[in-house]
């Protein structure tokens, strides 16, 4: 499975080219260019057969993904999909009692097996994080300026400059304020500024816009889009909202019950989703639902008990196109143009 993935998902267009930041529109040109030059790919984060268990509960089950430089990977999942655990693992913040198997390597270093000191050295320098609750990620008793200066050891000028770049007007005044004086949207901008200040190699954002209202969400999404240029490495965005990910990410991995069921570009996922779960999710999206719909669609059933051992396809109990073999055998990895899908019904 791993070999197959490497061949399919490693688009050499994802290599970091100093003069040109690859975006979706440049991909085809670069693809030709680098294939001709025969350059090999540089994987920033390699996740191989990675599992996380809390006691008997399996939160993440044998995930394999690769994130290259310049990639903006989106992780789409609902509650119970394991996306938060995966985000924590990428931020090197897994709690002590989490049991890890498999490999999650950042620039060759196995994050999960690193000692606490090693992980601390990476966090805030090479790996930066933005969380869902903007109030919780800022210290309520320190002024903004003090926090930014302490974080990543930035100078006052650099902090003011970054606040300006993330779109905060009157940055000098804001530096003297406390977090409670700022609105949710502003606080999230400050959190993003703090993350960008340390010039990270990887920026992980866990539900960055979920706590914000619709208008502010648009602004923060625009800000994150512009920040892609400022992150010399990769970005990972975790969200339950496909439209948020579609606006930001080059590729999206769909998580269900701790497993990646589909991986592909945003356009591919939105126009032609392959996995039944992805299709069902898109059908439930209120924005896509026609007004004439008689009932609101849902996905019947519940997530499987995460403490029980898995057999066959994890989505089978709720799948509308379930085949007899789905309950017995684990679904194969079937290559797609920009990624893969794990489904029996996709055969040929």
């Amino acid at each position, binding site marked *: 499975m791993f070999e197959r993935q490497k061949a399919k998902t490693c688009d050499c267009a994802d290599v970091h080219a100093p003069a040109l930041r690859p975006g979706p529109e440049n991909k085809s040109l670069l693809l030709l260019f680098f294939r001709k030059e025969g350059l090999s790919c540089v994987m920033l984060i390699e996740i191989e057969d990675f599992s996380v268990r809390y006691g008997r509960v399996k939160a993440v089950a044998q995930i394999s993904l690769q994130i290259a430089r310049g990639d903006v990977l989106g992780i789409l999942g609902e509650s119970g999909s394991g996306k938060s655990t995966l985000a924590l693992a990428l931020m090197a913040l*897994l*709690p002590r*009692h989490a049991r890890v198997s498999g490999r999650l390597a950042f620039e060759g270093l196995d994050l999960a097996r690193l000692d606490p000191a090693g992980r601390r050295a990476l966090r805030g320098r090479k790996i930066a994080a933005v969380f869902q609750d903007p109030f919780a990620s800022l210290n309520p008793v320190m002024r903004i300026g003090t926090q930014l200066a302490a974080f990543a050891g930035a100078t006052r000028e650099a902090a003011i400059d970054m606040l300006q770049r993330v779109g905060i007007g009157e940055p000098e005044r804001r530096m003297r304020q406390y977090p409670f004086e700022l609105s949710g949207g502003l606080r999230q901008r400050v959190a993003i500024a703090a993350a960008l200040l340390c010039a990270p190699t990887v920026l992980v954002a866990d539900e960055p816009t979920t706590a914000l209202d619709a208008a502010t969400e648009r602004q923060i999404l625009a800000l994150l889009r512009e920040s892609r240029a400022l992150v010399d490495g990769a970005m990972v965005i975790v969200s339950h909202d496909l439209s948020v990910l579609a606006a930001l990410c080059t590729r999206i991995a769909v998580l269900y019950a701790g497993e990646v069921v589909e991986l592909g570009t945003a356009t591919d996922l939105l126009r032609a989703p392959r996995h039944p779960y992805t299709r069902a999710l898109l059908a439930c999206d209120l924005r896509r639902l026609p007004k004439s719909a008689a009932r609101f669609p849902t996905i019947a059933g519940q997530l499987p008990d995460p403490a029980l051992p898995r057999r066959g396809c994890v989505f089978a109990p709720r799948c509308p196109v379930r085949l007899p073999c789905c309950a017995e055998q684990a679904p194969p990895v079937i290559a797609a143009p920009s990624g893969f899908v794990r489904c029996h019904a996709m055969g040929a």
Partner: protein
Amino acid sequence: MSSRPLLWTGAICVGVIVVSALLSGPLAPYDPIAIAPHIRLLGPSLAHLLGTDQLGRDVLSRVLAGSEIALNLVIGSVAVALAAGIILGLAAGYGPRVLGGAIMLVCDSIMTLPMMLCALALATVIGPGLFTVGLVVTAFLAPAYARIVRGQSQVLVGRDYVIAARAMGAATLRVMLRHLLPNMAGPLLVQVAMDVPTVIGIEVGMTFLGQGAEPPQPSWGAIVSDGFSYIRVAPHIVLAGSLPIVIATVGCTFLAEALRDAMDARQGKDGLV
């Protein structure tokens, strides 16, 4: 859970005291106030497990009787202090702000007074005795409870379920009794558990200074106070009197800690590396 040994130790200590208090009559081998001068100041023996004091009274029986006195004192004074504290605290937290400010001013003032001096002054006015001790205890514990109740009710009043209750049309009294009090029981109980050793300490202190229990009442403070005069000749009296105080203090403190751990655990703290 790390609080388990704490919980069991505390529960056993407190249990021992409570049982000895409830069954002090049947358990006591001798009459605690019966004087027998011919066997005074005897050390611990099989006949008298904790020895006898300066008037020949069996120390073990006196200690057991003292448990009963301590239990009555604690229950009586803490119950009254709780009732007063809850009423004042709810009025301060939920009522008009001016009233709240006035109540807190009074409570804070009482808490700043030096306790022992005021206790002695009170004893001078209304005379010594266990009732005076109870009064002192109530007067000094009630403001602390009022403080907790007021603080908690200010926090809880903003919670969604309290607002929901008001939106349903619940009257103020119902909100207080059904929603506020049950949800602040935790911190209150922890404070009560922490205060029990204080109550015992006040009784011992006041009796030592002659303003507490009157002879021949066998309170723990009286035993320690009497034994103090004979500490060179018969040290077993002071030790015997101090033993239950230590057990009660250790037991209540451990129970309070275990209770606090249980409350914190419910809020879910996770250790991140």
